[in-house]
C-alpha cells in the first residue's frame, strides 16, 4: 500500500498551522534508526522532564525527544521531520523563562544537551569554538587560565547552554558595558529544516552579504538549529569594585541611574532593587542591604586598578549628589561578592517567600523607571498580588517578580493579567515586552500590542524564507494575525484599529 502524497501546507502569517492530523508513527520508527540506542525517548515517564522549560506554568508532552550527539544526527533528524511534515522544537538546557522550549504536542523535541564539547580554544585570537550544549559558565571556566572569559552572564549561567543563549540573545548583569549575545558571538553553524548546513558570521570581523548572524541570534529556534558557536573571549578585568547606594525614594534612585550615565560613566553593572526585594533577600543572604531604604543601587566598575579608582570616585560623587542616603564601596573582593549575592539571590528568594512567582522582562527607557514603579504599586492593589522589583537599571530592563500561589484557583490568570499590564505599559513608555528572556510561548499575545500587522507579516516573511513549511518551533515568538485578532489584543498606536481586514468574532 502506498501512502498518499500529502502536499504540505506553507507557513502563513494569517493562521496557525495545526499538525494533529500528521502521522508520526513512521517518523518515530525512522528516528530510532538514525540515533544511537537509547537516544529516542517516547515513553511517558521519559518525556516528562521535557514537558516544560524554566517557565513551568506551561507544560506539554511531545511525541518524542531526540537526543542528538553529532551534527550528522541533527541533520538526519531534521531531514526526517521535514520529510514527514512534523514540527521540531530545539532545546538546550531548558532554563529559558518564556516557554521557548515548550514542546509541541504533535512534534519532536530535539535536544542538543549531549553536544557539549569545547571544540577549540584559541587564546591568541580570543575565541572559542563550542558545541551548542556547552554551558555558558563552562566556557569562562575553560578559558580562565588564559586571563579570558565569555562576557554575557545570564543569571542561569551555571546551567544554561550557549545554544540557548544564541536562540534567546541572552543578556545578563554586565551587558550595558559588554553587550548581549549578539555582540559576543562571532559565528554560528546552523542546520536548516531541510538539513542544509550553513554558517553565519565569521572569525574575521565580518562576512560578505547580509548580516544573517544578527538576524539569527535571538530567533528563538524558528529559523534553524545551531550545531556550533564561535564566541568572542574578553580579557578579564584586573579588578572590580562595587558601590552600594541606598535611597529613601525610588524616584531618586531612578534619577541617580540617569545621572551616572549622563556623567559619562558606563558602569560594568548597574542594578536596582526595591524595598520589597531587599526585604526578601536579606534574611537569607545577609548582603548588608539597608532595609529602611526604598531602593538600593549596585554600581560596579571594572578595569585596571587605576581606572576603577577613578570611576568609583566619580560614581560616588554622582550618587551622593543624587540624594543617596548612604553609599558604601566594597573594600575587598569578598565584600563585592556579598553586595552582589543579594541581587543574584532575588529569584530564589522570591521562591522562598511565595509558593510561585512570575518573572516579567520588559525594557523601558531609563527615564521612565519612576513611572513604571508607581504604576506597578497601583497594579499590586488592583490585582491583590505582591510584586518585588529587581531591575537591570543601567539598560532599563525590568524583572518585576509577581508573587502568587498556583494552587489558589484563578490566581495564575490574575498574575498573567498583571504581567500583561506591565508589558503593555512597557510598550506605551517606548519600550519592549521582552529585553532578554524572549517571547517564546509566554508573551506571544503581548507581541500583538508591540507590533502592527504589517510588521508581524514581515516577521512571518523572514520565518518562511528559512522554514517555508513552518516546522521549527511553530506557535512561538511571532503570533499569527488570526491569533492577535482572536485575542482581542490590538496594536493601538494612535488609537487606530489595526486589523480592519480581519473578521471579528
Amino acid at each position, binding site marked *: 500500500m502506498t501512502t498518499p502524497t500529502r502536499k504540505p501546507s506553507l507557513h502563513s502569517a494569517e493562521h496557525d498551522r495545526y499538525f494533529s492530523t500528521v502521522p508520526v508513527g513512521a517518523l518515530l520508527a525512522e528516528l530510532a534508526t538514525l540515533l544511537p540506542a537509547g537516544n529516542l525517548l517516547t515513553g511517558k515517564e521519559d518525556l516528562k522532564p521535557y514537558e516544560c522549560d524554566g517557565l513551568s506554568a506551561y507544560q506539554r508532552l511531545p511525541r518524542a525527544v531526540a537526543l542528538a550527539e553529532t551534527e550528522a544526527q541533527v541533520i538526519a533528524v531534521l531531514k526526517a521531520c521535514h520529510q514527514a511534515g512534523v514540527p521540531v522544537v530545539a532545546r538546550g538546557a531548558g532554563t529559558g523563562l518564556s516557554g521557548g522550549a515548550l514542546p509541541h504536542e504533535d512534534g519532536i523535541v530535539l535536544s542538543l544537551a549531549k553536544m557539549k564539547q569545547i571544540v577549540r580554544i584559541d587564546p591568541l585570537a580570543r575565541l572559542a569554538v563550542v558545541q551548542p550544549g556547552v554551558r555558558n559558565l563552562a566556557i569562562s571556566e575553560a578559558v580562565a587560565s588564559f586571563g579570558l572569559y565569555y562576557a554575557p552572564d545570564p543569571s542561569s549561567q551555571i546551567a544554561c547552554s550557549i545554544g540557548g543563549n544564541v536562540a534567546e540573545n541572552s543578556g545578563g548583569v554586565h551587558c550595558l558595558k559588554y553587550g548581549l549575545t549578539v555582540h559576543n558571538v562571532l559565528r554560528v553553524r546552523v542546520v536548516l529544516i531541510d538539513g542544509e548546513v550553513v554558517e553565519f558570521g565569521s572569525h574575521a570581523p565580518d562576512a560578505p552579504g547580509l548580516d544573517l548572524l544578527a538576524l539569527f541570534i535571538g530567533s528563538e529556534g524558528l529559523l534553524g538549529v545551531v550545531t556550533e558557536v564561535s564566541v568572542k573571549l574578553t*580579557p578579564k578585568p584586573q579588578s572590580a569594585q562595587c558601590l552600594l547606594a541606598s535611597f529613601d525614594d525610588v524616584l531618586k534612585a531612578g534619577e541617580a541611574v540617569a545621572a551616572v550615565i549622563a556623567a559619562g560613566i558606563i558602569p560594568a553593572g548597574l542594578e536596582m532593587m526595591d524595598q520589597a526585594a531587599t526585604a526578601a533577600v536579606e534574611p537569607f543572604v545577609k548582603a548588608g542591604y539597608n532595609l529602611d531604604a526604598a531602593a538600593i543601587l549596585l554600581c560596579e566598575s571594572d578595569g585596571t586598578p587605576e581606572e576603577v579608582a577613578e570611576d568609583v570616585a566619580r560614581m560616588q560623587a554622582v550618587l551622593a549628589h543624587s540624594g543617596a542616603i548612604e553609599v558604601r564601596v566594597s573594600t575587598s573582593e569578598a565584600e563585592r561578592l556579598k553586595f552582589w549575592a543579594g541581587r543574584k539571590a532575588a529569584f530564589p528568594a522570591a521562591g522562598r517567600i511565595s509558593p510561585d512567582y512570575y518573572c516579567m522582562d520588559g525594557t523601558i527607557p531609563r527615564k521612565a523607571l519612576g513611572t513604571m514603579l508607581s504604576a506597578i504599586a497601583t497594579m499590586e492593589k488592583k490585582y491583590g498580588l505582591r510584586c518585588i522589583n529587581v531591575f537591570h537599571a543601567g539598560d532599563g530592563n525590568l524583572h518585576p517578580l509577581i508573587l502568587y500561589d498556583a494552587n489558589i484557583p484563578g490566581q495564575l490568570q490574575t498574575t498573567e493579567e498583571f504581567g500583561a499590564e506591565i508589558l503593555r505599559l512597557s510598550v506605551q513608555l517606548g519600550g519592549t515586552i521582552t529585553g532578554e528572556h524572549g517571547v517564546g510561548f509566554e508573551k506571544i499575545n503581548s507581541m500583538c500590542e508591540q507590533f502592527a500587522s504589517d510588521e508581524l507579516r*514581515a*516577521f512571518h516573511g523572514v520565518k518562511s524564507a528559512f522554514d517555508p513549511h513552518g516546522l521549527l518551533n511553530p506557535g512561538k515568538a511571532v503570533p499569527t494575525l488570526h491569533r492577535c485578532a482572536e485575542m482581542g489584543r490590538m496594536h493601538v498606536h494612535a488609537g487606530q484599529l489595526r486589523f480592519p481586514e480581519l473578521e471579528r468574532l
Partner: protein
Amino acid sequence: MSEATIQGFRERILARQPLRIRGGGSKDFYGNTMSGDVLDTRAHTGIVNYEPSELVITAKAGTLLLDLKSALAERRQWLPFEPPEFAAGSTVGGMVAAGLSGPGRLAHGALRDYILGVTLMDGEGRVLKFGGEVMKNVAGFDVSRLMAGSLGSLGLLLEVSIKVLPVPVAEATVRIPMNERDALTAINRWAGQPLPITATAWLSDTLFVRLAGADAAVKAALPQVGAGGTAISAENAPWIALRDHAHAFFKGDAPLWRLALPTTSPALTLGTPLIEWGGGQRWLRGEHDANHLRALARSHGGHATRFRGGDPAIAAFAPLDPVTLRLHQELKRRFDPQGLFNPGRLF
C-alpha cells in the same frame, strides 16, 4: 514636510521601476554597478529624538552624519564605531546601509552592534518599524541589525535609532617602529590583556596604537604599550585620515582591496598592506587577481572586497555559498518582491 516626503517615496516605489537609493552619494563607488533611477533620501532629514542619558539617538535617514555627530559632540557623546565620511554630505541612512566602521571597530564593535531600531519602507510601500530606542529588546526577529550593511537591498531606511556612548575622557596615540610580523604578534598579544587599546594601524614598518578611556587607565597602559615608541599629538594622529580614506595610502586611482581576516592571520606576501583592527582589516592597493586574492582570504577564514576602483566586471563582494545565496534571495523576495531596491548592488 515629512509626511509628504514619505508619500513621495511611496509613489516612487509603487511606480515599480528599479530604484537606486542614494543619500549623499559619498559611497557611490561601493558595491556592484548600480542601475535604476536615483531615489534621493536627503529631503527626509532631522534628529527625531536625542536623550543623552538614554544613550540613544534617533534620526531620519537623510540627516547629515556631520549634523548627527555635532549634536552628540555637544553632549560629549559619539558613535564609537567611528563611521567613515568619505566625502562631505554622508547621511545617516547611507552610513547604516553601507554598514562600514572606522578605527574604533577594534575595541567598540561594528556599526551593526549599535543599531537599536529602524523604520523602513518595504517594496510594497509599507512603513515598518522594528526594534526601538532601548538597549535590550528581543521581541521579534532582529530586522534592524539586518539593515546594517544591507546596501539598501531590502528596504528604504526612513529612520534609525543608534546607541551612543560617552567620549573617552583621555586619549593618547603612540608610534612604534615595527615590522609587519612583529606588529601582528604584538597587537594580538595586547588584545588578550585588559588594556585600553581602541585602535591600531600598521603601515610602512610603523605601528600606530591609540589608547583611550579613563585618564588613569591610559596613563598606566602607556609605558607597557608604548615602549620603544614615540607619543604623537592628537592632531598628528592618523585616525581621522584613516577613517575617511584621506590618508596618503588611499590616494590615487589604483584599485583598493579590503581583506577581512581573523586577526591572527599571518602577514600576507602581497604588496604593501595597511593593517587595521588589530590585524582584522587589511587594505591593498593595485591590480590583484581577484580569484587568487579571494582564495587566499578564504584559506585564512576571511573574505576580500573590491572596495573601490578596479575592473567593474569583477564582483565587488566575495561570492556567497549556494545556501546562503538562497536565503538572501528568499529574504529579498519577502521585503522587496518586485526587486526594486538597488538591484545587484550587494548580491
